[in-house]
């Protein structure tokens, strides 16, 4: 229609203005065609031109340990600061981002949590083809580069190494990533504050967990699992220093250790067995076997179908058990001080990791008191009542009450960690030693971080006759726990202990909202892979 109209118009009469317009358009088209052919020619010439930097870039052949190449001096990204203006060096890392524009290519190289900007510009050593190649390396590929560290006048805000950049001379791809990634590292590491302007793309929890290998590459995740390793290391170091011995307990057991419900059954040759839900029995047996102070770090299984933010079906248990002389507070103080020492160790030695996590997840620093605050259960109940909560003297703390009490304690004492001592006997397992002065209470304790229970422990009954009496009182079939009772028949020192879940402690220390964030490959009722 439009064309027809134009034809009609042009056929009828061509005004002066119209003619001018047409001429202009024709000229423009001509110019366009000219430049296009020029670019094409140029490109052809470029591609065919002698590549001045051939051999300085490319896909490296699969490393099969053919050459040692020991002359290559590799430097870690976070140590680059001391190599500025000191000649060529090698760096291996991942391509975080890369963009080429004309004769330049900016590439951000990532090594764990550290990033550095690399630059390739067409020049004597670097050819156009090399720049183009560098610009096309897929994100997350592993590359080796040879480069010079050069200081920059303006801080590079997007990298952790802000004062320098790498001027690349050679670049080889060691392992290429797929061009399409299921999630972008940038999206996965975006800070979680809602008021942020600009892109607000999030990666949801399931996508993260499905592609855990990629997800774990974010700076926050790198920091979380380093800190988690720190928790285990500190736990081991602190206890070893106090004369504890690490033991390893079996995970396949014949009978349920606690209660009997919520254990996983596995086939065991012609019979069936269970997965251990607590190493408690074995810890106690080690005490009866004169090991005096023991701890164990290992997997614990709970077949509880609870899909909450703080339950896993498999987690790492850090358990300890200790014989004492006369009063279980000897143990209580040991455990409490171990926690304080762990918190102090994390505060002092892992501040970089904590900061790194804080950049993605905004949370308040963990606060604690030294020595740890110990409150009586009855005091806790009194605090709750004062706040207007109806709760019985012998009633267990419900989850909301537990959280409220955590907030009240925080408001009064400004601590995220506290111990509640002397729980009512009625709500504790049968092997808990009753309080000698008040039979409604027991020699048991819970420890809390940010208002959530992390440890539950008690003085255990070490007298077999009394144990049978207590078991009967709880209506437990004593024939089923005969082996447990039997282990106290040959003399056993008074002892107490407790256990914590590593993932939960890390989650609460960092103030994260989901335990799946602190388990590398979490197992819950709905997830068995990866």
């Amino acid at each position, binding site marked *: 229609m439009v064309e027809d109209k134009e034809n009609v118009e042009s056929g009828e009469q061509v005004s002066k203005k119209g003619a001018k317009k047409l001429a202009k358009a024709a000229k423009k088209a001509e110019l366009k065609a000219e430049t296009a052919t020029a670019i094409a020619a140029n490109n052809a010439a470029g591609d065919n031109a002698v590549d001045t930097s051939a051999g300085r870039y490319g896909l490296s052949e699969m490393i099969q340990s053919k050459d040692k190449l020991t002359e290559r001096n590799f430097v870690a990204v976070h140590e680059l600061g001391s190599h500025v203006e000191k000649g060529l060096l090698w760096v291996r890392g991942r391509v975080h981002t890369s963009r080429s524009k004309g004769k330049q290519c900016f590439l951000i190289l990532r090594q764990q949590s550290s990033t550095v900007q690399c630059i390739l510009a067409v020049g004597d050593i670097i050819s156009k083809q090399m720049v183009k190649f560098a610009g096309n390396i897929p994100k997350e590929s592993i590359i080796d580069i040879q480069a010079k560290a050069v200081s920059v006048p303006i801080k590079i805000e997007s990298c952790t190494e802000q004062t320098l950049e790498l001027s690349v001379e050679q670049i080889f791809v060691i392992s290429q990533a797929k061009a399409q990634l299921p999630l972008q590292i940038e999206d996965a590491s975006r800070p979680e504050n809602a008021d942020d302007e600009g892109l607000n793309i999030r990666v949801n929890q399931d996508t993260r967990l499905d592609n855990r290998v990629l997800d774990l590459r974010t700076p926050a995740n790198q920091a979380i699992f380093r800190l988690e390793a720190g928790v285990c290391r500190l736990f081991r170091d602190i206890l070893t220093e106090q004369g504890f011995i690490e033991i390893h307990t079996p995970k396949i057991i014949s009978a349920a250790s606690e209660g009997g419900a919520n254990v996983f059954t596995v086939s065991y040759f012609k019979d069936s067995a269970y997965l251990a839900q607590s190493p408690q029995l074995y810890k106690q047996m080690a005490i009866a076997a004169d090991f005096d102070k023991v701890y164990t770090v290992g997997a614990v299984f709970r077949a509880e179908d609870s899909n909450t933010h703080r339950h896993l079906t498999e987690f790492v248990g850090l358990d300890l058990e200790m014989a004492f002389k006369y009063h279980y507070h000897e143990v209580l103080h040991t455990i409490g001080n171990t926690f304080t020492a762990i*918190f*102090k160790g994390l*505060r002092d030695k892992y501040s970089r990791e904590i900061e790194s996590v804080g950049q993605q997840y905004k949370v308040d*620093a*963990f*606060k*604690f*008191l*030294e*020595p740890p*605050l110990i409150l009586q259960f009855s*005091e806790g109940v*009194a605090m709750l009542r*004062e*706040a*207007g909560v109806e709760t019985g003297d012998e009633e267990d703390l419900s989850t909301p009450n537990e959280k409220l009490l955590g907030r*009240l304690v925080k*408001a*009064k*004492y*400004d*601590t995220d960690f506290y111990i509640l001592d002397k729980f009512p006997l009625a709500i504790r397992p049968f092997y808990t030693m009753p309080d000698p002065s008040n039979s409604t209470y027991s020699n048991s304790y819970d420890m809390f971080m940010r208002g959530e229970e992390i440890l539950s422990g008690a003085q255990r009954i070490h007298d077999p006759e009394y144990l049978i009496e207590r078991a009967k009182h709880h209506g437990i079939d004593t024939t089923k726990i005969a082996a447990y009772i039997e282990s106290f028949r040959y003399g056993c020192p008074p002892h107490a202990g407790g256990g914590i879940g590593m993932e939960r402690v890390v989650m609460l220390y960092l103030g994260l909202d989901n335990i799946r964030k602190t388990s590398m490959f979490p197992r819950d009722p709905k997830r068995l892979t990866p």
Partner: protein
Amino acid sequence: MYELKTLLPQFDIKLPTCMYNLKNVSLSADPTTSTSSVSCASFGLFQSASEFSSSINSRKSIPCALDLDFLGRQIQHLLKDDTVSVAIRQDKIIQQLQGLKTQLGKIRAGLGICGKTVQHTTAFQNGRLKEVPLQDIVINGHPNFIPYALLALKNVWRALYTVNVKTFTHSTMADIGPAAREFEAEMDKIPVNNALPNINVTLIWKNCEHTEMISSPTMYLPIYGEVNVIRYLGRVGPAEYRYEGSPLCNEIDLVLDICYQLLRCSTHKAQVAMVRLLDQRLKQQYFGGSQMSVADIGVHSSLIRIPTITDKDLTPALLAWRKRAKLVTQI
């Protein structure tokens, strides 16, 4: 809560003789017995009233009810009533009450109400209003501003009242320094006497600006400043040191206010000026009298906290006072 100051001195109020005293019902400790005694009394009244009316009714046949003769006879009859019949009547009343009590007990059991008596937060003891569940208090202090008053009070009240202090270090403090450690050690030296009335104090070394006191986060606001903590402890402490009822109350408050200002002074000159003010208030052996009071504790601990004030800055009177105070506070 604050007790209000008494505006008038305590006069001996002369009551007119035409009035009779009512028994203070709430003074009796056990609420159940008090209610029963009250109901007993009312029941008795009711009983006698009904009897009286019934006796009137029985005499309705007599034409003039207000016959003086009849009234006289009636009074004589009542007066003649021997003690035996009164005792019988009382026994009858007690029996009826017992029946009522068991009946009520049955109703209560049927409703399933727990048997606990109502808990009162306040109760009268020795005629004085006293908080029964005294809150454990938390004091946050910076190691650079050590609340010496706590130690002083602990020493001074040794024989009267136990200030049970537990010290903690908050995670915001990496190191508390030697002075605070020494202070802790001094605290621990004083034996805890559980037989005395006591208050539990949690002292937390924390990176905070002011010395602050928290008793209950849900019910009360924090109290700021060491001097105000002294005031609080002065209220809950032993009766000998409660100063609100004393005529020297205003004087003590004034001295404590000067201490508060003294601790805020930033220049030495201002501090010396405050010390001069203190000197003016020291008229007797101690601040505001011949007895040691919380004011002396306030001044003494404040002076320790300001090391720039040396003996040179103090007047002879203050120096002499300081010696006396030191004997009691032992700092």
